[in-house]
């Protein structure tokens, strides 16, 4: 029940906001109400986390009601550690986004009410997607997320928003249709085997024959690869992020795109482990291409928003690489990466959005020397950038390194190529920082304001989490480890044992290294 309540909270908020008067005078109250709704959702998500038994693993807080009997469709919710992590990400980011969007300038004749309402609707749908344990319900919610984003881009974006919104829609609809085919296929398969069902618990043990499994897998995978986005299905993202408001970009890239990678973990790997393994060489190759290709394209961008979008193509490459390596280390890394990328990209989209709003241009060459007049803005941009390039000590490093280390045990070439991405990441971030923030102050940005208190307050939670999780990622890892174990053992590939395991207890050695017995009494000194 609690998950339904959690998902319904932003929906109620959206409803209230829609019904409130659409006058300029009421705008402030509208924003406060929306923010309050998102904070209640955050509080509920924390409550859910507190009730979640980390040690027990599996799906918890489940609820299940029959929905469409003849089709075997259920309204079924439940979270495991992976789903809960993404629910937390969603509920943490939405208040940040709402606060950051406080002063967004909307196109004429557009009310702030619907702008905020669509965001809250999107939050509700996202929570639903991450909690759904029925494939049909998942599909419906997955497709439903397109509607709020379509309107958020198409109605509230900048120049070229209609084109970008339609492109977004068409790409994702095509993916959705392919997934629909697989959804139908699941019905056919389960109906033939007895009772039709879409429940994850029933489907995950399904034996359907190699060809059918692969076809069904491809339907799901196509939708997720477009959503994530994986090269070569990524071209909708830069256009969408280039015109959307920063708030929309965050919701789209940090949260909704995660449904793609989350879907791969939950639906592709759990329902079609054999087909996932079959497809993994190609997926791994595309993931590595995404990492390098996205990074190279990010280097070449002049529009700072498109740059951030391409960095995400690169980061999603890492996440997908980790998922399709099927090792515990890499899978846990990918799950953590989803959370960390959400934070890091949110900070990057929001702070660059604040730059762009002040300057009235997103072109990197229209900036220069901003550090001098806006040190706080520049400092946060640098920190967000450093997290994007996975500097150790910041959250994304832990997840990226786990993905790489986990991949290395399975495929050395993939790991080596992916590691080259860290050099390219340094280039795309530092070149952008150099061109916008350093050098002589450009006359056009001479009077650029530094961040105000509201903006700092919006970014601060993200910054604190980015630094905090860089040093203390363990609470989140403890949350995801049991779920990752289940997924990895379900696929059945796992982590290869080290070839020459270092025995920490009684090792014989030559050379100058201190006796290993010393290693055993290292706690706290002597």
């Amino acid at each position: 029940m609690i998950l339904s309540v959690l998902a319904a909270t932003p929906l109620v908020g959206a409803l209230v906001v829609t019904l409130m008067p659409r006058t300029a005078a009421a705008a402030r109250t509208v924003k406060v109400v929306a923010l309050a709704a998102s904070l209640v959702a955050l509080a509920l998500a924390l409550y859910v986390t507190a009730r979640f038994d980390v040690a027990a693993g599996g799906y918890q807080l489940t609820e299940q009601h029959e929905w469409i009997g003849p089709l075997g469709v259920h309204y079924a919710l439940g979270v495991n550690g992976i789903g809960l992590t993404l629910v937390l990400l969603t509920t943490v980011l939405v208040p940040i986004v709402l606060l950051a969007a406080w002063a967004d300038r909307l196109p004429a004749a557009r009310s702030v009410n619907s702008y905020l309402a669509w965001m809250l609707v999107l939050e509700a749908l996202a929570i639903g997607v991450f909690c759904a344990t029925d494939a049909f319900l998942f599909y419906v919610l997955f497709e439903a997320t397109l509607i709020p984003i379509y309107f958020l881009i198409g109605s509230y974006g900048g120049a070229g928003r209609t084109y970008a919104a339609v492109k977004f829609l068409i790409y994702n609809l095509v993916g959705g249709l392919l997934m629909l085919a697989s959804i139908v296929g699941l019905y056919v398969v389960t109906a033939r085997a007895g009772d039709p069902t879409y429940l994850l618990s029933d489907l995950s043990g399904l034996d359907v024959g190699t060809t059918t499994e692969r076809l069904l897998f491809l339907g799901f995978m196509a939708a997720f690869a477009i959503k994530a986005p994986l090269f070569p299905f990524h071209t909708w993202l830069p256009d969408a992020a280039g015109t959307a408001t920063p708030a929309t970009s965050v919701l789209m890239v940090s949260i909704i795109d995660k449904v793609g990678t989350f879907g791969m973990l939950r639906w592709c790997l759990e329902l079609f482990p054999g087909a996932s393994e079959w497809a993994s060489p190609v997926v791994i190759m595309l993931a590595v291409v995404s990492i390098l290709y996205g990074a190279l394209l990010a280097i070449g961008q002049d529009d700072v928003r498109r740059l951030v979008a391409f960095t995400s193509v690169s980061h999603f490459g890492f996440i997908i690489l980790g998922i399709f390596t099927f090792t515990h280390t890499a899978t846990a890394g990918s799950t953590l990466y989803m959370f960390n990328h959400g934070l890091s990209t949110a900070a990057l989209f929001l702070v660059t959005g604040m730059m762009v709003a002040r300057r009235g241009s997103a072109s990197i060459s229209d900036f220069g020397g901003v550090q001098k007049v806006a040190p706080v803005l520049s400092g946060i941009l640098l920190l967000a950038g450093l997290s994007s390039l996975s500097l150790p000590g910041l959250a994304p490093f832990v997840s990226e390194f786990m993905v790489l280390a986990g991949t290395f045990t399975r495929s050395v070439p993939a790991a080596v190529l992916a590691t080259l991405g860290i050099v390219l990441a340094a280039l795309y971030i530092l070149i952008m920082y150099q061109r916008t923030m350093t050098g002589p102050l450009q006359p056009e940005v001479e009077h650029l304001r530094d961040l105000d208190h509201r903006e700092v307050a919006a970014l601060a939670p993200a910054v604190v989490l980015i630094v905090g999780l860089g040093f203390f990622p363990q609470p989140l890892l403890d949350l995801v480890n049991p779920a990752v174990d289940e997924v990895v053992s379900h696929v059945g590939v796992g982590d290869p044992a080290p070839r020459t395991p270092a025995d920490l207890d009684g090792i014989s050695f030559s050379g100058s290294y201190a006796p290993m017995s010393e290693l055993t009494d290292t706690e706290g000194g002597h």
Partner: protein
Amino acid sequence: MLDLVWLVVVVPLVSGLGLLVWGKEGDRVGHLVGTVASAVAFVIGLVAFVQLLGRPEDDRSVAGTLFTWISSGPFHVDMAYRFDPLSALFVLLVTGVGTLIHVYSIGYMAHDERRRRFFAYLNLFVAAMLTLVLADDYLVLFLGWEGVGLASYLLIGFWQHKPSAAAAAKKAFVLNRVGDVGMALAIMLMFAQLGTSSIQAVNATVAGQASESVATALGLLLLLGACGKSAQVPLQAWLLDAMEGPTPVSALIHAATMVTAGVYLVVRSNGIFDAAPVAQTAVVVVGLVTLLAGAGIGCTKDDIKKALAGSTMSQIGYMMLAAGLGPAGYAFAIFHLVTHGFFKANMFLGAGSVMHGMSDDVDMRHYGALRRAMPVTFATFGLGYLAIIGFPGFSGFFSKDRIIEAAFGESFWVGLAALLGAGVTAFYMTRLMVMTFTSPKRWLDDVHPHESPRVMTVPLVVLAALSVLGGVLVLGGWIEHWLEPVVGHTEHHELAVPAWGMSIIVTAVVAVGVALAWSTYTRSPIAGTAPADADVSVLTRAGRHELYGNAVNDTLVVRPTRHLTRVLVFLDARLVDGLVRGLADRLGDTSQFLRTPQTGYVRSYALSILVGSLVVVLALLAVTLA
């Protein structure tokens, strides 16, 4: 105190972060807070060192775990530290020299409105460097490794309104990242092969059981990382540009401590390198090439800081060479690292003092006769000079001699190259002394050279004293003995010439270098402007252009990457996006669904829902009828 030795990291870390978020009200005392934090770290380090000294030899290693950093399935990394004879020396060097440089910076940065931030960055650097040397796990070491890289980036680019400073900062970070690829891959290989990245476990296992190919791969990958951080060929090109940073930064980070981290890494990983002769040879070659290249650059630069930077490269080349010699060289690599930390920090701060008096001019052709105008700077710099060229009795005399001896023990040719390097060192350092201090004055009338304030000269005096006396560390073989628990027994090769004979030969070569430089630069007056490239020898031209390292990088990497990026941006819009759009257009031609973007988009969405529902219904029928 030994159990609390990790506080040396925490104190400057907290201070640095605090100074960063402190508002304008912190400007008045920020520099003092930063300096005190560094001094406190030094005191903690000193007490811990003394306590370590008081322990029996086989018990001089204290390790502990602060908390579990990452633990997931087979992947486990502890935030583990180890205070042993090697890290103890580094803790003292970093906090000791670091504190002196903090003090000096109070004066040097007195007129900079962002001084508080400067001290924050210095504190963060100290914290990161101490993390690097105290880490007991390669991933934790990597944390410090990248932390010092970040501090270096921030401090090189501290005057970021200068485009050259911003570009230099970025270049340093990116070239270091290339090295980091090696480091990161090495750690991945450790996990794959050994299941851990604990420094102790990895080295013990590699030394004992792993195959030589694993050891070689690890050694070469770590060497790549070391080349980036320590500005060794082929990743050397960032160091000279890094001189854009404020001079105290050049002294602390780009001379005394951070750039020697690569040497530390090799010595710390002696279990790996001892098991990998191929990797050791690579280390020796890298060290030798850099030693000579850096010295060559040092001979030709007129910018006093760049001349010193070339010298730093070269001296680190010596250390690297020694580290590559294995047990015969580890202790001397560290010994030279420590003495170099003293005399090079001394000379860089001296150069800063000169610039301070010369209105920030760095061109030695505009100097001359500063001996009288700046007596304290001259005297302290002079002592540093005698130390680096290896004047008998000074610290550099002992440390460089040991390396050259060990090099001859390895092979005659390696020894000869190291010996030649000593002569070139004497040449370029004498050139620098003559041009700056003793030749006739060449400064303009509106420049008024003056001695720096006490807050700057006192650290100079202390460092000068250390430059002179640093050699005591080797008396009675103390440093070899001290480091023995970490690096093993120092092997001494029997040379054809006895040790004292070797010292005489080295001193003679040094004397030749000094004499050559003296005669070259005192015979005729030094021109106020450098002769054009066309008028100097090929070698000089090469040295001035830093042996064309930038040109090579440009041609091989930078420009191809730029072109590739442009081509990809073009192709992404035309080809990848175009293909998918073309496909959509084709579909639009043949059906109502997927109209071209300009028309009927909301309708198409409605249609798709309709089509979707139809598919479901049809499938239902199909199954029911079947």
